[in-house]
């Protein structure tokens, strides 16, 4: 065996809170990377994932959905990583086809420290995989809704090797540097960059860095995370776009502080659209290719403290066909 073949797979963990811009960052990374054998593992709290549609450029995508890879879906992550290791050691594969880099995109509420520990403590994985870095994205525009949530984001930053302040174009330079100073106070070892639409710019880097200290979340914060729910609203293929818009904009206005993330595939007069939003703000939807027009449409809401049944009941009204009947 040559030295080159013995090389371990490099793995990057990309984390950050809901809607911080993980997928955008990953999209940029995948499309600009020269390394063709980049594999992506996408983790999603909800049962449907839109990230794999956005990341069609990547070499291969593995989805782990319906739970968080740091707790409930830990076993599934180990299984996927083992299959990558297995592929790597198979002699028949040409070096070009071997996986060289794995990018793990965690769900918005996962704890990167726990994923780090899972890989390092596994006897097989630790022999084959080297964790290159833990990247955490922090939304520059984010208004922290509560102390508890801030503690949760702080925990992600503590574990990071690299913190990227995303959406830096939406705030002033002063705010970016204020956030950068705040990050330095809780993790002085991290490399800090700012990013605009996935393009990063280095702000601060310490010359030598010691190993990261991995900390776990205290019990109360774990409880808070479990209160975050993900709700899937199935939509019909001919749902009226205007009804949806009226309902969604009113919902975001009335309950926007409790809804952290909105995403989904919806139908519109010009074809299927990919809808994405963070908090009260909704991005200009992306038009999807026509092959999506026959696929199931849905809307996913991630939030806290809202009665799921009432939302589903209310959503039925936008799902009715011919609701606005002519008399």
């Amino acid at each position, binding site marked *: 065996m040559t030295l080159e073949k013995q090389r371990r797979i490099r793995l990057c963990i990309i984390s950050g809170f809901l809607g911080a811009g993980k997928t955008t960052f990953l999209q940029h990374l995948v499309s600009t990377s020269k390394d063709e054998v980049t594999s992506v593992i996408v983790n999603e709290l909800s049962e449907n994932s839109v990230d794999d549609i956005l990341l069609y450029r990547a070499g291969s995508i593995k989805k782990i959905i319906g739970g968080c890879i740091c707790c409930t879906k830990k076993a599934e992550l180990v299984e996927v990583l083992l299959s990558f290791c297995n592929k790597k050691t198979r002699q028949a594969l040409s070096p070009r086809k071997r996986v060289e880099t794995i990018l793990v995109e965690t769900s918005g509420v996962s704890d990167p420290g726990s994923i780090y520990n899972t890989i390092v403590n596994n006897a097989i994985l630790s022999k084959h995989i080297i964790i290159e870095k833990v990247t955490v994205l922090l939304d520059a525009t984010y208004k922290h809704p509560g102390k508890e949530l801030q503690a949760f984001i702080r925990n992600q930053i503590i574990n990071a090797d690299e913190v990227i302040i995303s959406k830096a174009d939406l705030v002033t330079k002063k705010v970016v540097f204020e956030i950068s100073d705040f990050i330095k106070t809780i993790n002085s070892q991290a490399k800090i960059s700012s990013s605009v639409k996935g393009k990063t710019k280095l702000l601060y880097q310490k010359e030598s860095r010691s190993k990261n200290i991995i900390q776990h979340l205290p019990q109360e914060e774990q409880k808070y995370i479990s209160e975050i729910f993900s709700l899937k609203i199935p939509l019909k293929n001919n749902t009226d776009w205007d009804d949806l818009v009226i309902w969604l*904009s009113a*919902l975001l206005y009335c*309950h926007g502080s409790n809804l952290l993330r909105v995403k989904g595939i919806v139908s519109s007069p010009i074809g299927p659209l990919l809808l994405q939003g963070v908090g009260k703000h909704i991005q200009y939807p992306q038009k999807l290719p026509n092959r999506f027009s026959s696929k199931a449409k849905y809307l996913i809401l991630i939030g806290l403290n809202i009665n799921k049944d009432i939302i589903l*009941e209310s959503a039925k009204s*936008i799902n009715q066909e011919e609701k606005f009947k002519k008399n």
Partner: protein
Amino acid sequence: MCSACGFPEIKDYWIDAGTDSAASRLRSRLVRAKKLSVILKKYGLFFYDDGVTQLKQIGNLTGRVELVPNLEQLWEVVEDLLGKPLDPLDKKFFYNNVLK
């Protein structure tokens, strides 16, 4: 820029994503106006959109009228007029909407 009111056009407004031409944008806007007026009538408010100017009219039955450029600001004004935010999870919101 709208020549009648001097309001700059809002670019990339997500609500217009379902349309691809000026004609379909106008059609969608008028359909939305009709639906909104049915919904808001139940709360004692009226909504009127002439489809020409950028601003839409929202008012209550006492005669107070406000002008709003988009849906987000409409809900803000509705909260102002009603004294509480209009909750779409309320059964009254969509129940028995019949367009005449």
